């Protein structure tokens, strides 16, 4: 644990909360002329479209620098194998990890606070094996590493969050697109539930505000939304292959709200149909107006 680094990260995310746009120039390279807000890649190889989507935003080096400690946060919440689309596609996760190392990252850490038994989730999702194979550091959640953190208070004033996330130099969110009984869909912002500790079930009383609060506390440099397979019913856990739809798509972006707004369109909805996307947009976390964004579409 490095306390100074942690404080720095908290401070930076604090600035980001007050005005997220301040942070973006810091991570935007000089050739911003070709910059897209979102990149959507389609193709049959999850690894290839993941790489293509990130390249579509200007490449991984725009987000990860030499020597960085990176946290890659997939959804590993459930004891399901990849074809059920309950967890992030292991190839997508492994590709993001591989890209980080290509950009010179020192360490790439992968973890999630699972709902089902963690050992089964990590193994059955295929993520632990895929990530380890490319040198990523897979770890189980260590309960000692949650700390109460101050949040923006739309629903939660504070909540125990996982400190390893805030100690990292860079954070990359790698969620999967699924349905959900309460929030309709679970996409990027909802994936931050996996860094929450405590008795998480309680947050469903004010789920949308809670998701905005936690999303504002974390500042991912990149969101990679896995829509290789999406779960269209009985989410977020699934279990029925007939609910799974093969989309062969990966969406990448830097704006948490925009990625989720685009994710909604994959289910025939609009971002504004999701209360947490609306609230996130109103809170200044990002934009849900896809018409105002430059979206690069790639076939790979």
């Amino acid at each position, binding site marked *: 644990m490095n306390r100074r680094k942690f404080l720095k990260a908290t401070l930076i995310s604090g600035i980001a909360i007050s005005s997220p746009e301040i942070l973006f120039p810091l991570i935007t390279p000089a050739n911003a002329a070709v910059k897209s807000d979102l990149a959507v890649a389609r193709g049959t190889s999850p690894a290839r479209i993941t790489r293509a989507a990130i390249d579509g935003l200007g490449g991984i080096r725009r987000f990860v620098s030499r020597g960085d400690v990176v946290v890659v946060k997939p959804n590993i919440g459930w004891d*399901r194998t990849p074809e059920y689309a309950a967890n992030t596609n292991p190839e997508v996760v492994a590709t993001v990890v591989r890209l980080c190392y290509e950009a010179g990252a020192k360490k790439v850490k992968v973890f999630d606070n699972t709902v*089902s038994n963690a*050992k*089964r989730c*990590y193994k059955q999702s295929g993520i632990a094996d895929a990530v380890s194979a490319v040198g990523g550091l897979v770890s189980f959640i260590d309960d000692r590493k949650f700390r109460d953190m101050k949040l923006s208070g739309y629903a939660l004033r504070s909540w125990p969050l996982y400190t390893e996330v805030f100690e990292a130099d860079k954070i990359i969110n790698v969620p999967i697109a699924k349905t959900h*009984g309460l929030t309709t869909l679970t996409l990027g912002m909802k994936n931050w539930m996996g860094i929450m500790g405590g*008795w998480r079930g309680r947050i469903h*009383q004010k*789920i949308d505000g809670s998701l905005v609060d936690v999303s504002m506390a974390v500042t991912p440099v990149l969101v990679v939304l896995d829509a290789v397979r999406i779960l269209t019913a009985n989410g977020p856990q699934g*279990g029925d292959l007939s609910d799974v739809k093969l989309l062969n798509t990966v969406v990448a972006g830097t704006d948490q709200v925009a990625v989720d707004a685009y994710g909604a369109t994959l289910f025939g909805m609009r971002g504004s149909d999701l209360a947490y996307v609306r609230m996130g947009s109103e809170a200044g976390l990002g934009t849900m107006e896809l018409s105002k964004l430059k979206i690069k579409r790639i076939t790979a």
Partner: protein
Amino acid sequence: MIKKLRIATQGLFLLTFLWLFLQTESKGANELGYPVKIFLDADPLLFLTTSLATWSLDKFPYLALIVVVATAILGRVFCGWVCPLGTLNNMAGLLTRWRWKTAPLNWYRVKYSILIFLLISSLFTLQLTGIVDPLSLLIRSLSVTVYPMFSYATGAAFDTVYSTDIPVVVSISEFIYTILKKTVLPFQQPFFVQGVLIGILFFLILGANLVERRFWCKFLCPLGALLGLLSRYAFLKRSVSEGCDSCGACTASCQGGAAPDRREEWKNTECFICGNCDDICPRNAVSFGFSLKKPGASLDLGKRYVAGSILSGIVAVPLLRISPLMKPAYANPLLIRPPGSVDEKAFLQKCVKCGECMKVCITNGLQPTFLEAGLEGIWSPVLIPRIGYCEYRCTLCGQVCPTEAIQKLDLAEKEKVRIGSAMVDKGRCLPYAHATPCIVCEEVCPTPKKAIWLETVTVKDREGKEIIVKQPKVDLTLCIGCGICEAKCPVIGQPAIYVTSVGESRSKEKQLLLP
């Protein structure tokens, strides 16, 4: 020479046993990959009483048969050389001195009475062997008490260092902690009801070595008694040469209390072939060898003792069966058995309370009962969802059960087995009683088509403001009773949705819905 070889063998078997014990834990795959129950499979007493109680042979007992044959040829080598509880008793006995010259207790017949009681009661379908069978007892005590204690103490020690925040010290201790976590510590701290009681009994057994070394093995162990009977005509015999001057050194060192100083009156049924008498004899007068000679002292259990034991074995059966818990309608509704369990009556005949299923259960939900299943079912497994639910795609408990009380299911079968049914407590449920949104039970429900579904309802709060909530309902045709809804229900303590055994697949009488 025999003694050294014996100690090495004991160490080897104890380590193998402990290693298999540690492997009785999921690594996330569907199978464990190790034959974790072989010690139980090698136990002829468990095999014999289970077969008697069920009047059936489930499988051919290769390993148990090897032990039987080895005993018939070599004597009680299992006790002296193999049994991990025997070895632990040996080790505990090191805390005291051998009692020179004081008369040893002469209670060795007690274990034969226990054995006869168990054989007779199991013949009349009552299976109580697991309570006192040494391997069952040991695995249960380790699973439920000793291992959780070890985990707790180790964790507490490292947490204390961790919280000091001293840079170098913490990184060294965390490094060691990580290695321990990967090797000998459990994935999560286990917690067990009954841990204290089971622990006290186990420590009493170890502590009894201070009264007399190998107290348990000499006086109480029913497996030892069975092997004693089998060793009556063993070929391996002890002989004492003319050099013996009756110094008595061997008596004090004898682990089994086999009266080695009596030469011809040596009790071969009590001998563990430990080799201590051979090792200690100052005149080197003791030797072991094969012979067809008539055995030494006769094994006189006493007619009255035998008759008393038989009688108590018979009486115990109706005594334990007159509880109203035997009536399906009055059976404890919270007695949720592991998936794949056979019908309760057969379950009680088969379960040997070894605790393997509790050790392997990945959510810690399988717990030892106390009296929920009657005294007959003490320490048999019960799922307590508030402690841990039944993981939908896990089949480990059936894989480790030594007697098929829990049958081995493949994944497709397991997903269909109903161990109970969930029902909502509308008085505590947030969307029903408190106009507050919550859908956690629906979210975690694992069946492909969710057994819990949500009805969108407009309710009013105290001020009359309309609030839209989704109220959970259970589709009893789909619910399998896994209890994850109960486990994750945000209403702490008494949950707002809970599972009872009604509708469990294994019971004809407990069905609820018409087909």
